[in-house]
């Protein structure tokens, strides 16, 4: 079981990406069921938004037909993502955030992300992925020893992240080699 960052999925569909080959092998394993992974539900949103954004940027969405084609693309991409052997981590329900007399209900994942912000200087969406990772072992009842990502921000801080999460941050090529895919 490993945690898959969104960029691994997108790399599979970007032939000129440095991790394309290794990401493709990892996704093949997830398609065939020889690998088991997990990721945040945020990955569905990120995959959808990057496809939408890049479609507009490269092709444009000025016409009704282009809007329709962009929708087909997003649907196709998300279908491939959701058919992988992945568990989508989404802690259920709200939890209470309280501070100095102030109190508000918020999604549990936000609360966990705020707690992480006390220990790590991360962007909010990075923090949501890490919070999902930290929830994953409890929700799945299994160890999630690897966080696979091509993101330099994570990889350059892997030692500190490992101390906090207990997880090894590893790029797709290292993971491919480790598993001999």
């Amino acid at each position, binding site marked *: 079981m490993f945690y898959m960052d969104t960029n691994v999925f*997108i790399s599979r569909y970007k032939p*000129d990406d440095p991790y394309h080959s290794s990401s493709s092998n990892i996704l093949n394993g997830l398609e065939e069921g020889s690998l088991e992974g997990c990721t945040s539900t945020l990955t569905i949103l990120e995959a959808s938004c990057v*496809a939408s954004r890049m479609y507009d940027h490269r092709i444009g969405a000025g016409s009704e037909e282009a809007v329709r084609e962009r929708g*087909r693309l997003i649907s*196709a*991409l998300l279908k491939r993502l959701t058919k992988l052997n992945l568990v989508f981590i989404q802690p259920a329900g709200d939890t209470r955030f309280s501070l100095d007399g102030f109190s508000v209900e918020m999604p549990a994942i936000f609360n966990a992300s705020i707690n992480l912000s006390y220990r790590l200087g991360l962007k909010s969406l990075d923090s949501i992925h890490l919070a999902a990772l930290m929830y994953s072992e409890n929700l799945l009842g299994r160890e999630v020893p690897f966080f696979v990502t*091509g993101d330099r921000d994570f990889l350059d801080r892997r030692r500190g992240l490992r101390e906090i999460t207990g997880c090894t941050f590893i790029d797709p090529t290292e993971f491919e080699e480790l598993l001999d895919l």
Partner: protein
Amino acid sequence: MEIINVRFDEELISRLDELVAKGVFKNRSQALRSITKDFLDNHPQLFPLGRYERRGGGDMGDSELEEVCAEIFSGPSTASELIGEGRGR
């Protein structure tokens, strides 16, 4: 076309009939089809996934998906950097 049975209260039917009498619609059936279509077309948020397939756009096969993705994602930015843009980097 499929036929469906729907119950309406009298007030709604009266307003619908008024539009038919004015010639806005040819008959009740055409009125209901048109109003339903307008509503569905103008509320895309109700169909966040597969909306276009329902409109007849068709599924995208593997080879077409690979081709379109290669076109839109190609360039000097890595997949990680493209996702990073969405994460505020």
